[in-house]
């Protein structure tokens, strides 16, 4: 477990580095090396660290612990074949964590990032709809049962492709530099994490690495099925590259447009799942 946890952190950060590199190459820039995010995490660990005077000290530090803790728990839920509902409850907790990051610092940029994080909760609706579509076919929300179902009946990616698209949009909304990344947009400096510097940012980087690894792993297990670990890692990189293409070729939406597009996707998905429910 400890080895898997450390591997997830570093491979997740490597994926984020690949993401930045692919975006840079598409935009005809050299871009940073693929291990840049790992270096970032280490660099921030060695930077001078303190708590700003205007910050709520307990929340400012505690939210970093919670951020790492919930994604550690999410990794174990996925690895043990646990329930998708627990995983998505953790996903919702991350929204609260982003909000806590922003509000704890006392900085207006952080606060705006925290508020936008709540606004962007619209991205979670397609997630719930994709869960409903999965439940209609597999009659279970345990990841182990979903993998077993796919071993017998083939990947859910081909059975319920629109649910996979909805989950893909959720992945996209969590990727940096994407069309839905309104919580970190440039007019807010770094959004909710503006004032979390030094070690606190290193902790956030650990959380981001885990989050990226867990979300991509979940997508593969739920929509493609159980694969050998080496193949899972390759598929993770392939999915990530497609996400990077979308991020590189689409502008960041305004908060209003971001919520509108995500709500529209959610509406289409609700109609799709209702149709699936009637047909099954």
């Amino acid at each position, binding site marked *: 477990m400890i080895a898997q946890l450390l591997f997830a952190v570093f491979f997740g950060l490597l994926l984020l580095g690949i993401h930045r590199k692919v975006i840079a190459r598409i935009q005809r820039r050299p871009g940073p090396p693929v291990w840049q995010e790992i270096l970032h995490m280490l660099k921030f660990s060695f930077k001078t660290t303190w708590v700003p005077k205007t910050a709520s000290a307990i929340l400012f530090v505690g939210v970093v612990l919670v951020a790492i*803790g919930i994604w550690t728990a999410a990794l174990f839920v996925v690895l043990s074949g646990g329930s998708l509902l627990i995983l998505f409850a953790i996903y919702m907790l991350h929204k609260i964590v982003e909000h806590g990051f922003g509000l704890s610092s006392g900085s207006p940029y952080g606060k705006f990032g925290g508020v936008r994080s709540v606004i962007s909760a619209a991205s979670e609706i397609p997630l719930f709809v994709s869960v409903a579509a999965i439940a209609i076919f597999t009659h279970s929300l345990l990841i182990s049962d979903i993998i077993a179902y796919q071993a017998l009946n083939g990947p859910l990616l081909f059975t319920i492709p629109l649910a996979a698209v909805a989950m893909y949009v959720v992945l996209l909304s969590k990727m940096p530099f994407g069309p839905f990344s309104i919580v970190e947009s440039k007019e807010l400096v770094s959004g909710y994490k503006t004032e979390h510097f030094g070690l606190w940012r290193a902790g956030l980087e650990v959380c981001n690495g885990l989050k990226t690894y867990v979300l991509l792993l979940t997508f593969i297990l739920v929509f493609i099925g159980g694969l050998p670990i080496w193949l899972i890692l390759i598929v993770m990189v392939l999915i990530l590259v497609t996400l990077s293409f979308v991020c590189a070729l689409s502008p960041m939406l305004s908060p209003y447009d971001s919520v509108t597009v995500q709500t529209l996707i959610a509406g289409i998905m609700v109609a799709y799942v209702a149709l699936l429910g009637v047909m099954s």
Partner: protein
Amino acid sequence: MKKQYALALALVAAGSGIAAMALNMVHTLPDWAYMGVLVIAFPLFVLGLGLYWMAREGEADIPFLGY
């Protein structure tokens, strides 16, 4: 936070994780309890180690409020 407290925090967290792993390997600790220990110990270890490396013990700063 004093550096020795940060080091103690990192060591206790790492020790808890390793002890949980050892107990799990000899089937004394169930998987869910092992995972629970890691969920609590891992964040504490990350922050404890980082604070030991670089935390400043002096005055706090005010945040950046604009140009």
